[in-house]
């Protein structure tokens, strides 16, 4: 759909058309895509899992309202000061100082969405802009930007963030999000660049140029709508890697101490030496991290099918 279906309709319209017409086109595109997506079993499972995690994230505000002892970070059961197994009072048991594991698990879902989506949005923003500029400008700009991308691409993000936290001390969760985003744009930029290269000499771009459109206008009005679907597809993969990196960082003990993430929970099990005794505590966070990355990965692959008609045929 990105380049084969019909990129022309929007661009052929005069720029001052009422906004409604544009929106109508987007809705139609979305409906078409959804029809294909719905047929994909992997995509349906992925979406269902994501809905479940979203529900968990929303529900994460409830436990501490029921009783302050269920607060994931500061709530301590007055009668329990060590790790205990699942019970009616604590559905998944308690951690080493008597905090409720279930409410920590819910809070972790919130952090995972927050980290994954915000970091992915930022890196998509960078990647798309840089990729479009590199592909459109060509020559030296292209060369410099792509070499920069190559350089960042070979760096192991986790270890880079690790060394930064050694130098700058304990990192805030938003700094971590930004760091992950800053090191994850090159992959997106490369794909968007090659897409832009193939669009650059299409008749509708030439027409816009002849009509006197500025470079910025061509980039953001004419090229951006056509690379947007691809950027969105990459977003789901970026969410996955952001969640994994944050979790790994927290697991190693360099997460934001003010947040309860699933990686942090695993770190507590591991560092307090409960991993052999407390499987009720070891299993849930790991299953959640694995499942949420799988869910985003599955939705990404299903979206890939929607965007690439060639793949769609192969599956049947």
């Amino acid at each position: 759909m990105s380049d084969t279906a019909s990129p022309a309709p929007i661009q052929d319209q005069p720029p001052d058309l009422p906004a409604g017409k544009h929106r109508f086109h987007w809705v139609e595109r979305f409906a078409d895509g959804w029809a294909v997506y719905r047929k994909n079993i992997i995509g349906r499972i992925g979406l269902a899992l994501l809905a479940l995690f979203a529900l968990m994230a929303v529900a994460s505000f409830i436990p501490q309202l029921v009783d302050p002892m269920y607060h994931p970070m500061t709530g301590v059961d007055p009668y329990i000061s060590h790790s205990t197994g699942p019970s009616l009072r604590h559905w998944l048991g308690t951690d080493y100082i008597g905090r409720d594991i279930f409410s920590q698990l819910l809070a972790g879902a919130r952090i995972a969405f927050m980290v994954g989506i915000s970091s992915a949005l930022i890196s998509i923003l960078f990647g798309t802009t840089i990729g479009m500029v590199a592909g459109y400008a060509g020559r030296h700009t292209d060369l410099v930007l792509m070499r920069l991308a190559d350089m960042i691409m070979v760096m192991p993000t986790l270890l880079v963030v690790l060394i930064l936290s050694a130098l700058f001390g304990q990192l805030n969760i938003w700094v971590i999000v930004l760091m992950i985003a800053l090191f994850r744009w090159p992959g997106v930029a490369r794909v968007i660049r090659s897409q832009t290269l193939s669009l650059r000499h299409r008749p509708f771009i030439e027409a816009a140029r002849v009509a006197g459109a500025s470079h910025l206008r061509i980039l953001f009005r004419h090229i951006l709508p056509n690379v947007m679907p691809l950027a969105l597809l990459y977003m789901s993969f970026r969410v996955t890697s952001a969640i994994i990196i944050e979790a790994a960082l927290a697991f190693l003990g360099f997460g934001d101490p003010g947040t309860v993430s699933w990686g942090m929970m695993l770190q507590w099990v591991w560092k307090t030496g409960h991993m052999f005794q407390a499987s009720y505590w070891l299993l849930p966070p790991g299953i959640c991290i694995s499942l949420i990355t799988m869910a985003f990965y599955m939705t990404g692959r299903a979206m890939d099918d929607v965007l690439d008609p060639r793949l769609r045929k192969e599956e049947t």
Partner: protein
Amino acid sequence: MGLRPFVIRRCIEIAVIFFVIMTVLFVLFRLAPGDPVERMVDPSMTPEDAQLLMESMGLDRPVWTQYLYYLKNMATGNMGISFHYGEPVIHILMDRLPNTILLFTSAIILSALLGVFLGKIAAWRRGERTDMLMTVGALFCHTLFLPWLALIMIWFFAYHVGWFPITGMVTPAVWIDPDAGMISKALDVLHHMALPLMTLVLTHFGSYLLIMRSSMLDTLKEDYIITARAKGLTEKTIRDRHAAPNAALPVVTSVGLSLAFSINGGALTETVFTWPGIGRELVFSVSHSDYPLAQAAFLLIAIVVLTANLLVDVLYAYLDPRIRY
């Protein structure tokens, strides 16, 4: 372009990248809050030793001179003295390097081979139950959270079943024993390596399998496969000798692209299994504010990643002459 000019060009590119990484690290160490001298010289050293170390690193000179000293010291391997071990950093890291290379390369090669082998079969039986099972299994393994898988491995195979040791790389008793031959020592290391290796291979082969499968499906549509069929070759020959070698090329590319990801995983694996490698040393030094060790470990990891990248590129250029444009 022949193979040699291509290799030389890639070497130069990689040297430039490494130079930039080194420079950025230098700048970061000066930009960070706190005293840069305190970051390189252990506060608990005697004044005389500290003075000597500072002079050898040029820490009493202006920043530009410091940078030149830094480059010179990197070239000669004088990377400072570890706060924790009290030994020159380079000795510690050179001791750990072979362990990392052993675990890392065997993990990458094994997972690529496994991915290619299973992906080949999945594509050959496309649409059947085998294909479905393999694809789902690969997707599942690929998305497992590595440190957690490592913990589960230890919990199950080392603690419950007791087949493998829980941590470390060697059993001291075996290595101290003067009668122990090379074989028993090698077996001991293998025994310790089994779990970390399994963890790395399990989390890596999935993506290679998926890539091999889709690449193989494309290859099977090519004309030369039809020709091979028309010639009356056996199915096995077509699959293994005509289709698979060509289909495996994208896997090589993806090994190169995922190297950074693999070294992240390597560091996590080493840390959980207390495998004495560079990745674990980096994590350790960061949590103990051992700056000279952290800096050197990071640079050494950068060298490992870049070299591995170079090797993959050369392998690819060797396998596919079209790439040497």
